[in-house]
């Protein structure tokens, strides 16, 4: 449950978001908008990577301004470029890095790492260098490193932009299965077809909000 109340964000000289009030309760929520519309900033508000200049963002009742650390434990964030997100040299090490501060016994941590890698088909690459993976596999690895922490909410910033059609479909299929609440910012409209709700962001405001068909129709009009 995420609540944004009259959120304004000013970065430098630019008003990136100008009065956004939404309450995000659905399981699958998409966010679309033109480049520079403020949608990436909107995503970054949800785990406290960006703080509102005015207004409030709360996740499960916690204000991102005061409880960013606790919120980040509940909200996983997937970036567009997995190269920026993978911090360890090899696949299994990167997943294990997520668990580092959980204080798990070595065997328990190894078991969880193996489990998540098996689930997403990366176990054969466990000891391979991350830079030997394909783009799609890297994005899967970034996802594994988040999901191993079992967050309640997953926020994704253009997760399929750098992927080919096959990997995009794989990510879409994964999204359908995930038990987490998902908020996905994307230009990949096919990804959003079976979502519960889509927000259209334009020039720092939410200009349409509703079922995917209607919202995407409005987005297409807006971009025409």
């Amino acid at each position: 449950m995420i609540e944004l109340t009259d959120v304004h964000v000013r970065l430098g000289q630019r008003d990136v978001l100008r009065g956004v009030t939404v309450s995000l309760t659905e399981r699958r929520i998409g966010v679309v908008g033109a480049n520079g519309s403020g949608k990436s900033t909107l995503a970054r508000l949800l785990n406290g990577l960006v703080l509102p200049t005015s207004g409030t963002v709360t996740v499960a009742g916690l204000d991102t301004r005061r409880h960013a650390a606790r919120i980040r434990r509940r909200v996983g964030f997937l970036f567009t470029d997995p190269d920026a997100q993978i911090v360890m040299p090899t696949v299994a090490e990167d997943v294990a890095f997520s668990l580092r501060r959980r204080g798990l016994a070595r065997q328990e941590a190894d078991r969880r790492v193996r489990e998540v890698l098996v689930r997403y088909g990366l176990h054969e690459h466990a000891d391979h260098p991350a830079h030997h993976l394909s783009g799609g596999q890297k994005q899967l690895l970034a996802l594994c490193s988040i999901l191993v922490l079992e967050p309640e909410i997953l926020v994704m910033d253009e997760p399929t932009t750098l992927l080919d059609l096959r990997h995009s479909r794989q990510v879409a299929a994964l999204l359908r299965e995930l038990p987490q609440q998902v908020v996905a910012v994307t230009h990949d409209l096919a990804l959003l077809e079976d979502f519960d709700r889509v927000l259209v962001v334009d020039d720092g405001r939410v200009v349409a909000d509703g079922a995917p068909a209607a919202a995407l129709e409005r987005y297409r009009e807006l971009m025409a």
Partner: protein
Amino acid sequence: MNTLTGAYVPGASVLHRLPAGVKLAALAVCCTALVLVRSPAVMAGAAAAVAALYAASGVGAAAAWAQVRPVRWFAVVLFGAQLLVADLPGAVAATARVVLAVALAGLVTLTTRTAAVLACLERVLSPVRLVGLDPFRLSLLLSLTLRSVPVVAALAARVREAARARGVERSARAFAVPLVVGALRHADALGEALAARGLDD
């Protein structure tokens, strides 16, 4: 670059099972010993010992060659230069010393996971706490460096391609500016990702 990043070959040999700290300490001792060796006969014995260690590790000939391959031309030049200033046994010993030291270091990387090396460094570095530094941050710095080598190398390749596509491949500026900008952008994104993954919690 592969000698630095993820050259690890999974295995169950004695060398794989030894703690990283023991291997790193042994590497330091062996390299020091190599510096002290003068006689070609002893050096030949050392070479045989290194070869035996490689055989025991079971990493395979290809992985072994990949470790020393990067220094092959350096070894040739060194040997030639040593011949000019020293005698033949001296030149052989000097060249073998460098090649064997690289081979030994390579053997440690081949049989040790980066995570084990970092955990060991974190322990060794723990006294830096006394001067107010966080050993975890120091070891993280090292692993980010390892991770960034292939990322920046890929960036450099892209920048070079872009320069070639625009016909400015001879311009140093057309290479350096986008490379530096790209590296800084990557650093920003990495910092954001570390925050999102709860590094500062």
